[in-house]
């Protein structure tokens, strides 16, 4: 069953936590730190967590959002887990490419592709 928060929709598919961003903008500092906290809490105490972030709804993000995602990625790695980013719209994907963060993150075109890659 999906758990809804104002910012994230979290569900579980097999042993993967699937997190959808609800808002179309990941911009405000406060918003970003709340999202970061929710994701960190989700990972807390889990060994080898598998996390899939679904960007379907996201039209805008900022460097602060990228920082938050890197932090989540660092935590997943510390816990020997795996992180996938999926369903990223072309303009947002370009931000990842320009910043070369597409080399840091494992980005999948679709959720199905991401699920199959774990």
């Amino acid at each position: 069953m999906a758990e809804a928060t104002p910012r994230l929709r979290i569900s579980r598919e097999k042993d993967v936590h699937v997190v959808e961003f609800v808002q179309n903008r990941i911009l405000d500092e406060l918003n970003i730190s709340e999202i970061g906290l929710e994701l960190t809490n989700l990972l807390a105490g889990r060994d080898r967590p598998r996390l899939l972030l679904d960007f379907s709804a996201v039209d805008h993000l900022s460097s602060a959002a990228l920082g938050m995602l890197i932090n989540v990625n660092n935590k997943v790695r510390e816990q020997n887990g795996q992180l996938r980013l999926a369903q990223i719209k072309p303009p947002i994907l370009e931000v990842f490419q320009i910043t070369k963060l597409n080399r840091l993150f494992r980005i999948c075109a679709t959720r199905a592709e991401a699920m199959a890659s774990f």
Partner: protein
Amino acid sequence: MAAGHPPASSRMAGSSRRRPGPGRLHFEIPTDCRESRKAQFRVLNELVRRGYSNDSLFAIRLAMEEALVNAMKHGNHFDPAKKIIIDARIGPRSARIAVEDQGAGFDRRHVGDPTRAINLCKLHGRGIFLIKAYMDQARWTQGGRRVTMTKANA
């Protein structure tokens, strides 16, 4: 939603003293995220009204966000007593947006390249890079306290 329509009666400080011409928007706001959001909304609204392309809108929105966060955070250190000036001149073919804070300024030579492998995992340091990447021109003056960014409507 963080940025809603500002109330019709809301006026930016300073706007009453200046009479901006067509396509000119001038705001003097306190260091406040909500005020920053309102000003951004006004500028973006004007760009939409003038038929700017989605690509240009995306770039300007991103650059303005980064410039304003830098001004509030690194410039004014979130001191609400300090002001931020936003001056936008929006023509039919290009837009020029300046953001100025009241901080100590900074030396851009000390800002590293965030795309270097050694910096990829760093949580900060991409704002200026994104401004330069997405705008046609970005110039820092007044010791780094003011950034003036230009983008063509393409």
